[in-house]
């Protein structure tokens, strides 16, 4: 089609202006893709930090406990015989089951005191669900029955504690009487999840149960599944609880990570804003381009009208050109976006380099985050930009094509 060919050839005119418009679109694109990647990386990392070091993929607890879980109550604990725990563990898709007794404690080093989260765990089972033990940077994990504890490095620093130091955990038993757990520090943790490093004391489950006077009760079961299977397996679990007349409920990690989910929602909002700005930039660039071209080609447009071209035929020529600019800008943007995201994904980006500790903002990420690849974002943006270029060229092109032929020919 001749008009199509003409539109493409027109792309080679006003090269510098076209290149600038293409570059503007490309950089806007790049900015979007880069931010999307960083935010995606932040989200993914927050999620995996929560799953791998805090909640597991699924948590099983009584709904009454779940509701009050922030208060770390010793009511509504789970008392199960080992058979049931084993049967859960043997279910398809469940890779690990770890009982956890969560309690509030005051950590005393003999001089100072601070409030911490106490976690009674059985190391072997805990290991099947969480990656935490890989991050013991000094010392080792305790065995069941030992009066020992593992704490995060940050907490150790704060309380001026070292390996083999003794600490006292001041707790309240189920009957609300005071009790203490005296333990020796056997390991120091430095996990990627800063929340764990800052305020958690791990002790053997049986030691905690004894001190809190809860028999063999525990707060919840943390389960590991393949990621993405949480909902499916959660459902199967619920069915099996019903069969066994248990009131237990399965909660996916998402339900215990509301603040992070909120972050993810904020991310969507933020990315939406960036997207609108990017599209606006593209639109202005294209409209500006079409208007300037039309002004420069007034005589030519007049000639086209004299030849009897219909208005939409002239509009079409401009639209082809504008769309071409959209496509080139989009491609260039995807290309540099590809490079930028590639670098981010490979080398990551350290917030600490900028002197920002984002864990202070409730984002459980330590130092570096890595970009994620969001391929749909590339194609989505590309298609969107072509559409926007196409649409935003219509009005100025129509304005150009609608000119009175005599005025156009004689530049009046």
């Amino acid at each position, binding site marked *: 089609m*001749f008009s199509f060919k*003409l539109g493409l*050839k*027109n792309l*080679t*005119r006003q090269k510098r202006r076209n290149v600038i418009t293409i570059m503007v679109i490309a950089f806007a694109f790049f900015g979007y893709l880069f931010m999307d990647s960083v935010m995606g990386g932040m989200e993914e990392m927050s999620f995996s930090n929560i799953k791998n070091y805090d909640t597991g993929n699924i948590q099983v607890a009584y709904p009454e406990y779940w509701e009050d879980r922030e208060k770390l109550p010793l009511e509504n604990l789970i008392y199960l015989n080992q058979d049931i725990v084993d049967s859960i563990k043997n279910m398809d898709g469940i890779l690990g089951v770890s009982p956890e007794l969560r309690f509030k404690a005051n950590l005393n080093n003999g001089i100072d005191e601070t409030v911490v989260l106490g976690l009674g765990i059985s190391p072997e089972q805990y290991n099947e669900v969480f990656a935490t033990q890989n991050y013991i940077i000094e010392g080792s994990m305790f065995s069941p029955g030992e009066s020992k504890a593992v704490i995060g490095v940050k907490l150790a620093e704060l309380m001026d504690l070292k390996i083999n130091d003794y600490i006292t955990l001041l707790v309240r038993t189920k009957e609300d009487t005071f009790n203490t757990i005296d333990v020796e520090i056997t390991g120091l943790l430095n996990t990627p999840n800063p929340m764990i490093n800052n305020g958690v004391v791990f002790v053997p489950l049986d030691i905690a149960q004894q001190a809190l006077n809860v028999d063999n009760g525990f707060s919840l079961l943390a389960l590991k599944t393949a990621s993405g299977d949480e909902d499916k397996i959660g459902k199967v679990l619920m069915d099996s609880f019903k069969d066994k007349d248990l009131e237990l409920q399965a909660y996916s990690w998402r339900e215990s990570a509301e603040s992070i989910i909120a972050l993810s929602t904020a991310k969507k909002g933020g990315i939406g804003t960036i997207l609108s700005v990017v599209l606006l930039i593209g639109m202005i660039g294209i409209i500006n381009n079409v208007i300037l071209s039309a002004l420069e080609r007034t*005589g*030519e447009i*007049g*000639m086209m*009208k*004299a*030849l*009897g*071209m*219909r208005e939409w035929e002239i509009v079409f020529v401009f639209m082809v050109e504008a769309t071409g600019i959209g496509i080139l800008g989009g491609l260039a943007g995807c290309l540099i976006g590809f490079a930028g995201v590639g670098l981010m994904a490979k080398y990551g980006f350290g917030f600490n380099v900028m002197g920002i500790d984002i864990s202070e903002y409730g984002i459980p990420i330590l130092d570096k985050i890595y970009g994620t690849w969001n391929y749909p974002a590339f194609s989505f943006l590309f298609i969107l930009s072509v559409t926007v270029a196409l649409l935003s060229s219509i009005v100025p092109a129509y304005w150009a094509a609608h000119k*009175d*032929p*005599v005025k156009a*020919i*004689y530049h009046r």
Partner: protein
Amino acid sequence: MSLLELKGVKKIYQQGKIEVPALRGVDLIVEQGEFSTIFGPSGSGETTLLNMIGCLDTPTEGEIRLNGNKVSDLSRKALAMTRRFNIGFVFQSYNLIPVLTAYENVEFAIRLIDHTSELKIKERVLQILEEVGLKGLENRRPNELSGGESQRVAIARALVKEPKLVLADEPTANLDSKNATDVVKIMVKMNKELGTTFIFSTHDPMVMEYAHRYINLKDGMISADERRG
């Protein structure tokens, strides 16, 4: 039936509150195959008259008939269609598209009306370019052509669709005398060979020489109209 009939054609331009009468009652009949020039002092309305005849604009008053069809009250769209199929234009500034070759500039015009085979179109375009003396320059861009050559491309573009009527507003004004006479001679040749009706305006007496009919315009009215040769 005459090719072109004008009856009492007036054109008044509105410039703010002032009315500028560019044509003040023009009666004119042009027959098929005539080769006419419109001339007169600057500002006497030649361009305006050509624009009315060429369906680029409509008169304020009066009637224009092309092939017996009244065109003076058509819509913009209908006017465009009339131009597309019946009228060729040549302008003082050649108005070629700079990114297209001589060949493509001519091809552009015929593509608008002819959807026959590629081969026929190619044949036709090459033929008309040869007739205006541009054989061998088909692939040059406008910036690689002289003014005379450019205007010949424009003539080929106007003629390629074989219109009944070709209107040329000062087609030689930008050319030196050698190129100017060349261009007029080509118009004469086309008029003879194809029987195309030409109406052109000019201020150049040498170019005027070639016409068969002289239409003298003064203050928006025809003051003299004579045939020669």
